[in-house]
């Protein structure tokens, strides 16, 4: 351009001006003072700036801000030195974007129209943007390549023909712990002689063959030996001569390790299958056995070799075969599993025909397009046995716990034993269980509880003499009787019944405490009795025996306490009666004496009025005195020491029934309770109420002693009567009331051979001292009802 400008020095200025105007390059013409004279079309078009707009500050406006300072400096320097100016800078276009331009200056003398010439500066700007970009791209590509090699996980290097390194990447340096510049160094300098020789041998091979050499080797890195795939290849120059050797190394240490681990695990797997305690069996899609491990022989009794090809069903009991075949074919057809594949418990069949429990897990693999199923079969007979033992232990614990709990309750012995027998039926799978207790005379077993298929307590088994039948013999021998072959047991009397009901076993235990027998516990079952069951029964029998003993002792104690209270009260009443006799008899005696004496004197006509008056006065005084004594005694009875507390009369009834339980049982009296669910509490003396109730119950029992032709039943009833009082009634089915009902409550009146005739009298006094009433009515159709009321609290009684 400079050349071009200089060569146009002589052309016509107008033409020049026109030429400049039409230049494809951007052109600016400036005066020596730097002010712009003209800008050409290309300039205006690219920058969008006219001459006016530039207003002299052409470069500040158009050069990229990053370069404007440098540009001004260079411009100023060249201007001062009168040197040519050439630089590259970015100039802003109309769209606001910058492009790279080569900016050059030429000095030109331009003749003016007036003959004078003037010095001009022509600046041209040639667009070099495309080139600049290509250059930048190239540089970027080199950097990328460099980065690629540097950061490659592979070892990458270049060597010259003499094994001198031209380049080695970061990974290479890291592997061999080489720091600093590697260029120019040789293998001999960097590695051990053996290593260097090995590397150089490959290099020689590349030089000789002129082609890629690929090999696996092992090299010692800083952190140990590494297995590698090494690829070395020749680099040819334009003349086809090898000028360098390239190398790329892939580390395969990890892969090698995995491969060997895999081989190990396969070996291991084979070993596991061979020595596994579980049977391992593979079958094909037809269900034929492909493989069976040695454990199969131990578990199933089959030689593994003889199983090959046989259907899997030979290892199953008959009842599972169809099921298996159906399920298996359905799975093959639909993919739907008929059992859980992991840990399913099934029954298997040994070669000797024995069935046993197994746990099966299996899986499926496809081989050559065919499915193979492999199952692990574990013999869980022992585990099942252990589980069964644990369950038996749990059952035993449950029975013991329930028996203990039953005896902990404030219930009658019969109720408690009922719960015990229910626990035995529930936990020991008995058809029914019964408990008898021994009567006081030790001769009779009385049925107290029956649970399961029979719950009645009457009938032929309700009373069994000791020594008779199987139950009586257990009590006599004090030895348990156990049989799992009921039909052939000589002691089982009713074989027809046993066969009809499908009874398989009988277990009977004597209930013994020390050397005393208190009863018998027995059960029938439709299943054989296991040793665990007998153990549970034995331990249950022990608990029940002790419970009965304790309950008897408790009853005896309570009975004694009540009896003591009763006797002490009776004694008091006896003394009271004597006192009444004496206290009242004194004035009565005086009255009769005086009266008799008067009559005598009167008969003899010797009675003087004065004497008569005095004696009559005495008689009146003594009569008054007698009635005063009676009043005093009545007051005393009313004040009879009573400890009145708020109490639930039902609770007292229950207490007394527990005490009377034995008496009721021994007299074979059926007890019926009709107790109102909720009754208000009464204010009463507990012991006195117990006495009254016990007295009425005992009276009822005694009244039924002679009854043999109908059930002896005693009904205890509590309710609220019409007047809102609490009413307690004792119904019996005894001999009933005589015509002298009104005398029942008179002291010393008795209908009993050994009665004192005080019971009802005292009971009535006690009830009346509580503000209640006690009376008797005939019961329908037989017997009597003794009723008493207690005022409802908050009533008149305080």
């Amino acid at each position, binding site marked *: 351009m400079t050349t071009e400008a200089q060569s146009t020095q002589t052309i016509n200025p107008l033409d020049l001006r026109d030429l400049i105007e039409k230049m494809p390059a951007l052109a600016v013409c400036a005066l020596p003072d730097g002010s712009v004279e003209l800008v050409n079309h290309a300039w205006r078009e690219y920058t969008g700036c006219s001459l006016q707009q530039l207003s002299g500050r052409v470069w500040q406006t158009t050069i990229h801000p990053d370069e404007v300072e440098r540009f001004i400096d260079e411009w100023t320097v060249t201007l001062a030195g009168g040197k040519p100016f050439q630089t590259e800078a970015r100039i802003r276009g109309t769209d606001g974007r910058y492009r790279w331009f080569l900016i050059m200056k030429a000095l030109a003398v331009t003749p003016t129209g007036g003959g004078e010439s003037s010095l001009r500066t022509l600046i041209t700007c040639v667009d070099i943007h495309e080139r600049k970009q290509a250059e930048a791209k190239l540089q970027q590509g080199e950097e990328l390549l460099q980065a690629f090699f540097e950061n490659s996980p592979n070892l990458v290097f270049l060597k010259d023909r003499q094994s001198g390194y031209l380049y080695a990447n970061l990974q290479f340096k890291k592997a061999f712990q080489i720091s600093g510049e590697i260029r120019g160094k040789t293998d001999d300098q960097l590695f051990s002689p053996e290593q260097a020789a090995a590397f150089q041998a490959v290099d020689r091979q590349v030089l000789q063959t002129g082609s890629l050499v690929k090999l696996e080797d092992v090299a010692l890195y800083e952190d140990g030996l590494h297995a590698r795939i090494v690829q070395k290849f020749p680099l040819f120059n334009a003349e086809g001569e090898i000028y360098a050797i390239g190398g790329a190394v892939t580390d395969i240490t990890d892969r090698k390790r995995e491969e060997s681990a895999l081989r190990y695990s396969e070996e291991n797997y084979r070993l596991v299958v061979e020595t596994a305690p579980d049977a391992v069996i593979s079958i094909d899609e037809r269900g034929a056995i492909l493989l069976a491990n040695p454990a199969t022989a131990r578990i199933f009794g089959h030689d593994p070799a003889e199983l090959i090809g046989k259907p899997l069903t030979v290892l199953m009991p008959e009842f599972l075969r169809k099921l298996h075949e159906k399920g298996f074919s359905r799975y093959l057809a639909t993919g739907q599993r008929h059992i859980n594949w992991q840990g399913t418990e099934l029954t298997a069949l040994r070669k000797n025909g024995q069935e046993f429990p197994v746990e099966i897990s299996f899986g499926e693999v496809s081989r050559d397009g065919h499915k193979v199923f492999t199952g692990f079969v574990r013999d869980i007979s022992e585990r099942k046995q252990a589980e069964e033992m644990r369950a038996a232990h749990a059952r035993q614990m449950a029975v013991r716990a329930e028996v203990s709990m039953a005896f902990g309750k404030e219930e009658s012995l019969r109720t408690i034993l009922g719960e015990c027998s229910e626990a035995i039926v529930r936990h020991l799978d008995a058809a029914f269980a019964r408990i008898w207790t021994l009567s006081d005379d030790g001769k009779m077993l009385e049925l107290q509880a029956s649970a399961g298929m029979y719950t009645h307590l009457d009938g032929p088994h309700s009373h069994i003499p000791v020594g008779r039948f199987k139950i009586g013999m257990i009590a006599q021998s004090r030895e348990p009787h156990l049989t799992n072959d009921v039909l052939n047991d000589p002691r089982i009397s009713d074989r027809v019944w046993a066969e009809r009901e499908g009874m398989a076993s009988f277990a009977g235990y004597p209930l013994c405490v020390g050397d005393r027998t208190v009863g018998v516990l027995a059960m029938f079952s439709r299943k054989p009795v296991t040793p665990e069951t007998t153990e549970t029964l034995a331990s249950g029998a022990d608990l029940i025996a002790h419970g009965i003993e304790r309950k008897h002792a408790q009853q005896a104690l309570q009975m004694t306490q009540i009896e003591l209270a009763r006797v002490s009260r009776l004694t008091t009443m006896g003394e009271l*009666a*004597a006192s009444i*006799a*004496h*206290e009242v*008899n*004194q*004035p*009565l*005696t*005086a*009255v*009769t*004496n*005086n009266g*008799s*004496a008067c009559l*005598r*004197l009167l008969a*003899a006509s*010797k009675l003087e009025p004065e004497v008569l008056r005095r*004696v009559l006065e*005495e008689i009146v*005084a*003594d009569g008054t*005195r007698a009635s005063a004594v009676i009043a005093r005694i009545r007051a005393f009875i009313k004040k009879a020491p009573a400890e009145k507390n708020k109490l639930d009369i039902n609770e007292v009834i229950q207490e007394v029934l527990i005490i009377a339980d034995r008496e009721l049982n021994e007299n074979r009296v059926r007890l019926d309770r009709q107790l109102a669910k909720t009754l208000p509490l009464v204010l009463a003396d507990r012991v006195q109420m117990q006495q009254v109730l016990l007295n009425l119950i005992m009276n009822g029992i005694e009244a039924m002693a002679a009854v043999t032709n109908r059930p002896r039943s005693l009904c205890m009833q509590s309710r609220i009567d019409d007047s809102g009082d609490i009413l307690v009634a004792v119904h019996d089915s005894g001999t009933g009331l005589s015509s002298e009902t009104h005398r029942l409550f008179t002291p010393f009146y008795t209908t009993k051979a050994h009665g004192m005739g005080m019971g009802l009298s005292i009971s009535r006094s006690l009830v009346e001292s509580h503000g209640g009433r006690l009376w008797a009515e005939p019961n329908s159709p037989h017997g009597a009802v003794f009723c008493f009321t207690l005022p409802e609290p908050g009533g008149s009684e305080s």
Partner: protein
Amino acid sequence: MTDAEVVFVVDDDSSVRSSLKFLLSTVGLQVESFDSADAFLRRKSAGAPSCLVLDVRLPGLSGIDIQRELAARDIRIPIIFLTGHGDISMSVRAMKAGAVEFLTKPFRDQDLLDAVRIALEQDRARREQEKEATVLRQRFDSLTSREQQVISLLVSGMLNKQIAGQLGTAESTVKVQRSRAMEKMHAESLVDLVRMIEKIKSRTARTS
């Protein structure tokens, strides 16, 4: 009922006491009453036939206790017990210990009067027996010791000869002593003498 018979009444109840006194007075009996056993036991001894009407139940010593105490003191007064209520065992004990009657209050007046009459008769008879025994004893005491020895051996059934052998004297001496003793004892025959000696023995001579 001569000789100023006395009925002793012991009862802690004043009405009973006075009514008994009144009743007994209607048949002309003299009554002395006491309100306790002690008061009765402290009284002077009665010379005339008497009986005791005694309440079983007394403060302090009971009626049965008094009966025992009197027996211990050898006071042989017949006792009629009165009781407030029939106590069979007590009445049996009392009757065994010699009670005349055991009456339950209140009783028929005639029962008491009958019992009192029987009791007084018993006491009169006893007193007469005792009086006779005392006379015989005095006569026996007036014998010489040899005469007493002879009589004793005679009563035991010995012959004069045997008695002489026993005492180491002549049979004639025994004869003399025997007739003298018989005379002193006012005995008309040997049988009479034997009866007298029996009476003395049965009543070991201590007057009441």
